[in-house]
């Protein structure tokens, strides 16, 4: 299978701030790819560039074989923004059904299925303002999944979740991978990123390192990813 995401020499500047500095990225189809890095390292900007929501100053992006921006390819992409980004006066079901409709889905069934998947069927008809943080995250994930995308961009999908729910989310990711869905997620937690198939460690808008978690540990000679990150950050510092 071909690559789900390809980015070549992507640069992006906001005012005087260089947010992305020549990012090169290849994500093979069917894996979970983790973008790891501290806040402000450019993770969200990179995701937005890959979606076509933000235009890079330089560089080219190809997603699912199409040059970005491409409105039609968005039909096959799911996006979970960092904020829950939901309508709090509507119920979970109404939120999911609304976003389903923006992908042309008017059928009830995919909405019910995805509610079942994130275990919200019991609270489907409660307004979101009565929801806990974890329930909002699950609703947000459901909204990104309802149209059965082939590629998922998840921006900090598990931030603020308890360990049990986080494990459940990773269970979902793995099952989606098995059906051929590619997942690209961001995280600032090393322990969590270890579960990804491939990792890109982003800092100051450029990759410090990129590869499978094992490769990264071997290359730096560290026992775990946390030491990989600390070693890399110390030896390379802020890239200039």
């Amino acid at each position: 299978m071909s690559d789900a995401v390809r980015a070549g020499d992507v640069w992006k500047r906001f005012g005087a701030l260089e947010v992305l500095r020549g990012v090169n990225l290849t994500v093979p189809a069917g894996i979970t790819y983790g973008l790891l890095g501290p806040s402000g390292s450019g993770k969200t900007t990179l995701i937005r560039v890959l979606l076509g929501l933000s235009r890079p100053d330089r560089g080219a992006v190809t997603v699912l074989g199409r040059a970005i921006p491409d409105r039609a390819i968005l039909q096959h992409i799911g996006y979970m923004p960092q904020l829950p980004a939901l309508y709090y006066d509507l119920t979970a079901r109404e939120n999911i059904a609304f976003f389903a409709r923006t992908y042309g889905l008017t059928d009830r069934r995919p909405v019910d299925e995805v509610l079942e998947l994130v275990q919200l069927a019991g609270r489907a008809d409660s307004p979101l303002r009565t929801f806990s943080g974890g329930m909002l995250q699950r609703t947000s994930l459901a909204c990104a999944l309802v149209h059965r995308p082939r590629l998922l961009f998840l921006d900090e999908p598990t931030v603020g979740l308890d360990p049990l729910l986080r494990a459940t989310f990773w269970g979902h990711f793995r099952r989606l991978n098995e059906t051929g869905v590619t997942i690209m997620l961001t995280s600032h937690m090393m322990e969590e990123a270890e579960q990804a198939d491939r990792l890109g460690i982003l800092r100051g808008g450029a990759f410090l390192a990129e590869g499978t978690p094992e490769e990264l540990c071997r290359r730096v000679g560290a026992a775990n990813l946390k030491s990989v990150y600390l070693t890399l950050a110390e030896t390379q510092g802020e890239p200039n």
Partner: protein
Amino acid sequence: MHGGPRYDALDFFAPAMVGYFAFFFVFLLTAVAFLRERVAGTLERLMAAPLRRSELVVGYMAGFGLFALLQAVAVILVAVLGLRVHYHGALLSVFVLVLALALVAVNLGIFLSTFARTELQAVQFIPIVILPQGLLCGVIWPLSSLPDWLRPAAYALPLTYGVGALRDVMLKGQGLLTTSVRLDLLAVLAFAALFAALAVGTIRRQGA
């Protein structure tokens, strides 16, 4: 004023209020609602779906246009049944004019929501957008009582045309096809089209 001696100030006010309330509330609701879409990130989510920006704007126009019509019914009922103002116009003509004003208000609201970061800032558009139109557009006193130097400002504002047409329809019983009403309606629709273009321009998929 327009009619005979039986007409009083309320008769002069009522048609203007139908248009003014429609404009005021639709503008404010759209500006706040769209600001929320921007701040909460739901706009970002919508932009990540294969929607056209114009589809989004048309959706807003349909939703708030319907709301404006319901509100117009309420204002007319209060004016006619409660305040017993004189009323001659065909309801359909009034609806067309209210809808046209609502389209102006929706698009202006979406456009201006770009320049606010909080709902309080959106509310501060009232003195900039709503108040001058209330004072200059013939809502409270007729255009003819404005000093000469202010009159061009009145003709640069959409509500002037909407209120003029509503008054012609509701007070004088003129139809939409009467020359003056038709020209006023076209002027209002031209404002709606201008602001629609500006609104779509601010919802940039490739922005920021």
